[in-house]
């Protein structure tokens, strides 16, 4: 009963439909302190390595370069400078909702004054003349804040 049917065979698909995996990710003490500071005081804090002196935002336990535990929280500004940036124009699926992300939007890695690492976030402009390396920006916070990164509405251009 051998039968070759490569030409005629209808090719099926199976779809995942509405299936999803829910998660409850621990933010941890270091991250929680950062998020609570945004929520409660609309301010950013970083953590400073006792060995190399780098200030990390968001704060975390370990300095990867020095492999030491960090403990010294330092305030960093809500203002900073765009390190690298892009205007996102293509649509893609947001994996947390399964739906298309709205585009376009400005996106930048921001070096907050007093920090040594970048914080990636949305910029409220899609003008490539303004969203550029070196531009000064400032964080704008949501009125209702719940203790997630989404408490930051976006960064606005200062210049």
């Amino acid at each position, binding site marked *: 009963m051998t039968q070759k049917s*490569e030409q005629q065979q209808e*090719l099926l*698909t199976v779809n*995942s439909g509405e299936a999803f995996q829910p*998660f409850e*990710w621990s*933010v941890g003490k270091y*991250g929680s302190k950062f998020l609570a500071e945004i929520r409660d005081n609309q301010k950013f804090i970083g953590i400073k390595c006792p060995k190399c002196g780098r200030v*990390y*935002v*968001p704060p*975390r336990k370990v300095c*990867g*370069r020095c492999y030491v535990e960090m403990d010294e929280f330092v305030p960093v500004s809500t203002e900073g400078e765009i*390190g*690298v*940036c*892009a*205007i*996102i*124009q*293509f649509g*893609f*699926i*947001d*994996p*947390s909702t399964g739906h298309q*992300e709205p585009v376009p*939007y400005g*996106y*930048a*890695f921001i070096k907050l004054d007093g920090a040594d*690492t*970048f*914080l*990636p*976030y*949305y910029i409220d402009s899609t003008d*490539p003349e303004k969203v*550029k*390396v070196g531009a000064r920006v400032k964080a704008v916070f949501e009125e209702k804040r719940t203790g*997630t*990164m*989404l408490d930051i509405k976006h960064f606005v251009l200062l210049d």
Partner: protein
Amino acid sequence: MGKRVAIVGFGQTYQRSSRKDVNGPELINEAVRAALEDAGLTIKDIDAIVIGNMDHFEGVNYVDSWSVEGSGGVMKPIFKLTTGGTTGSTVAMAGYYHVASGMFDRVLVIGWEKNSESDTTGAIVTAFNPVWERPRFGGAIAGLAVEASKYMHNYKVTERDGARVAVRERLHALNNPYTHLHQEWMKSMEIEQIVDLLITSEENQMLAYPLRMSDMCPRTDGAAAAIFASEDIAEKIAPKPAWVVSTHNRHNYALLGDIDWDSNDTLESASKAVFKDAGIKEPFKEIDVCELYLPYSYAGLKWMESIGFCGPGEGPKLVWDGHTDMDGELPVNPSGGVMSSNPIGATGLLRVGEGALQVMGKAGDRQVKGGDVKYAFTTGFGGCNWADVMLLGKKKPS
């Protein structure tokens, strides 16, 4: 001291935008059969298997277990590695360490992906920290676009320079029957003409300035497999095996925001470590061919500098002068590279395998230097600048 190790066989499926005719394990099986055939071995000859891909592209957990009936791993030693975009090069490195350890003589390594089964960018977004990065993120293209814009800012690089890399990759791809993109229309035009067309055509959609569709890798289904063998048997299996001269990797960062965007320091440091092992002092002169994991055009400029093929900001000149074309001093990606085919979990292994084919003199229409390749330099890229480097050579390492 470990065993010396060579690649003695390599196989790849035809890579296409979607392989509706096969499921995952069946696709894997095609690549495995091709690699075994290339080496003249059967599955019984294989002592151990390593497989890799990225789970969230197909939504399958424990892929090594799931695919074992296609991979040939039933009643064999097998495990899975995954490091993101580097997965394919990572499994190649694992093939090397399996054999170098002296524990296994013939090891099959497999990289694969069916990117058509999900939204690739959506799945890539899940690679980033859910608390810090994911809520406002633009996927892999955003990460690359920001790097490109900084590089352009630093060295007054233009969109034309990026497009020149894209043209090279797509022209090379025309020599490779396995690769995904075959843009035949480019054949009849001059390079300058194609470059101008790419940066002015409205059909060439802007994805995230400065990256247009033509600057990016496609989304691909495909699988690749390679066989690594010990020095005791390598030359019996393949008359001209591709010896692993040295391999190293680096991955320093946990968050994208920690990266120093001015350099690709992990690629630089992994390359240096490999050159040191191999005693290579002038990489541009001493390396004969490269298969580099360049997921987008500007990487073909900036990362050439990181590897040490030229100085900072000199990438564009190197490429415009034709040195990296098929007949140049240092041909880069005769296969067409990642920008012509990107089945992500297989992509790094395609680089290693294509490099091996060059050394073995089996690269067909894409063979460079008349088949006389002393050193082929291959890389993998992924994650927060995860960099894998493997140098292959004609001569058995001392």
